[in-house]
């Protein structure tokens, strides 16, 4: 049967809610299990005592599950064009025999389905933002701990560099670092070689300092790390993974590196500040008296005790990274023109914004919602971690 009646707002929203059924199911399962076992789940469990935190977590979980089940949720191929659907209003029927009969959120200027692009955009964003925040954290921790703990010239040099990067306007940095011309020179690969090596060094140091008295276990763990680490490293930095599991297209690597580079100095300053505070505590003095190595004290005494503020900031940082990725997309930097990520969709939609606002509004609201969720989640976590 062919549909030719446009949907009303109510029907459109209803159909969208039905289309994301895997997300509702996933959320119900996760929330049910988490609330059931919340007393055994530490800080994560306590999150369910705070209304703000729970709302934030629900929003974040919603988008994470949308990203996971994106290929089940989309109604059309995000790149497919249906000529008559150019700038179509939300809820318009496609008039085609096969496929989903409506463009739920209308069509964009190239007659693609806005809803499917928004859903796929969630996957694009959530593929990069948490990973970039994680690498930025590894870099910030790896440099911030010694700067705070040892102080001296080490601190002076690192702080000067961090302040230098922070003094650089982010957008100018993006315009200089994320261009096809820069990709030709290999600078992003060079930066990736350094930035991706730091998490590996950090993990190796953690293993070594933890098991220094048990050489057998230490060597086992180090061997596992070396195999997995070098495999991932070769794939990500040099695009030389023989199995093809770890790879990043050059433009994505460029974006990733730029975002890590911008975030790392802030993390560095936070970690340095917390370390300077914690290093005067009794348990650090106790470890020093026991004769523990500096690496052990930093990684296994100071870092675990700094986790509260770091976890909170990590949530905020994912949100900030999402905003940065959107900024890059908004200026058309580092993304392929067809990419459905939210920033570039907003950028494409803004040209016809006053006539057909829906194409830009959908990704804009999605981005706002995800960042809001992350901020609320961070707020809830902060509230709960302060209660201890």
């Amino acid at each position, binding site marked *: 049967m062919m549909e030719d009646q446009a949907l009303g707002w109510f029907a459109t929203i209803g159909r969208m809610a039905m289309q994301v059924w895997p997300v509702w199911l996933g959320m119900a399962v996760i929330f049910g299990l988490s609330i059931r076992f919340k007393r055994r789940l530490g800080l994560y469990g306590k999150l369910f005592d705070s209304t703000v935190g729970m709302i934030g977590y629900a929003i974040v979980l919603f988008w994470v599950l949308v990203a996971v089940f994106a290929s089940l949720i989309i109604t059309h191929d995000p790149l497919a064009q249906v000529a008559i659907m150019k700038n179509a209003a939300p809820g318009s029927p496609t008039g085609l025999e096969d496929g989903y009969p409506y463009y739920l959120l209308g069509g964009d200027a190239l007659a693609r389905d806005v809803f499917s692009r928004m859903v796929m955009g969630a996957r694009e964003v959530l593929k990069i933002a948490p990973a970039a925040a994680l690498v930025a954290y590894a870099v910030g921790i790896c440099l911030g701990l010694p700067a705070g703990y040892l102080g001296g010239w080490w601190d002076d040099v690192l702080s000067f560099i961090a302040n230098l990067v922070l003094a650089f*306007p982010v957008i*100018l940095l993006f315009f200089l670092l994320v261009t096809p011309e820069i990709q030709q020179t290999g600078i992003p690969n060079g930066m990736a070689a350094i930035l991706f090596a730091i998490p590996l060094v950090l993990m190796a140091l953690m293993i070594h300092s933890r098991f220094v008295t048990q050489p057998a276990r230490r060597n086992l763990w180090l061997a596992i790390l070396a195999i997995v680490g070098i495999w991932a490293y070769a794939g990500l930095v040099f695009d030389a993974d023989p199995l093809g599991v770890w790879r990043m297209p050059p433009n994505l690597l460029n974006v990733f590196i730029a975002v890590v580079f911008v975030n790392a100095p802030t993390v560095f300053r936070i970690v340095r500040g917390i370390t300077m505070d914690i290093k005067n505590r009794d348990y650090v003095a106790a470890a020093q008296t026991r004769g523990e190595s500096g690496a052990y004290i930093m990684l296994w005494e100071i870092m675990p005790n700094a986790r509260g503020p770091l976890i909170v900031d990590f949530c905020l940082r994912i949100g900030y990274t999402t905003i940065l990725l959107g900024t890059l997309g908004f200026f058309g930097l580092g993304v392929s023109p067809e990419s459905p990520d939210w920033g570039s969709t*907003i950028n494409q939609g803004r040209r016809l914004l006053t*006539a057909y606002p*829906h194409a830009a509004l959908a990704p804009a609201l999605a981005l706002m919602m995800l960042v809001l969720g992350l901020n609320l989640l961070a707020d809830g976590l902060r509230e709960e971690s302060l209660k201890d």
Partner: protein
Amino acid sequence: MLTFLARRLAAIAASALVLTFVVFALTNLDPNLEKLAKGQGSARMSDAEVESWLAGNGYDRPMLTRYGEWLGVLPGWTAEGEDGTVVRGRCIDNAADREIRPRFCGVMQGDWGWSTRFRAPVGEILADRLAATGKLMFWVMVVMVPSALLLGVLAGMREGSRTDRTLSTVAIASTSTPEYVMGVLLIALLASSQAGLSPMLKEWGLLDAPVLFQGNARSAVGDANFWNFTLPVMTVALYGMGYIARMTRASMTEVMTQQYIRTARLKGVPFRDVVMKHALRNALIAPFTVIMLQFPWLLNGVVITEVLFSYPGFGWTLVEAAGNNDIELLLASSVVAVVLVLATQLISDIGYVWLNPRIRLA
């Protein structure tokens, strides 16, 4: 105090030097120079033509030399015509310059160079554009700071109350809405003749113009008015507001738990007077720093907003310069940006000491 100032100013100069060198190095990478040549010549230049264009305009010499010329510590580059007279050169923008021909013409001599994108001296362009951005920033501050402080103080006055919860949520929502989202929302809601409020108001006969506010601020450079300037100002102000409001709230809640506030309450001072006379002044020290440190963030917001509303200010110029690899305009812009960032840091440190006599600068 004087040594502190001198040290900080030296640090600013050093940072500006390092950062301009980085910008210079990045903009002078071979692919970028090729882009510049093709942008200035024609897009279909062959490799040989690109090279001869670069050589003809002095771009083929070592990078350090040219950085020195830009700084003004090395004599400027010149090209001689067939008869041995100087025809082109770094310091020669027009025929009159050919007569005087200064030997050095770098930043230290006050010459900011020539913009290849706008075909005009960088100094003039930046002065105009900074004036336009200054106007935007001024109105942003006028809107943002008082509303943020009010929001924060009202929320922090009674921690945990319903007012606090509501206002804190508003603040979080505003920090979660970056400029490019806020701008899109505001345009769709207020500046579209098809959607949002404008068609509705028009139908009710409350509105004469087709739209409530204009979604394009180009006309605001010469003549800024409520109609064409509201949306860009709100776009920048709303994103920054949430952060300042949250910091003010945190500072206010802390002050409200102090002993002297309790004493005042127990003495029977009305709550209004406690807030206005005892708490407010102490609670506003921390937000002052935050507001000053907000400038660099505003700069980012200004770039996005100016592009979105096509308002030709500093941010818009920066994007144009970067898109066309306009080396000298980019260098000057980064100097402006870096100095702005570091100077606001300095002012915030000094202001903090001035406001809070318990702290002394070493």
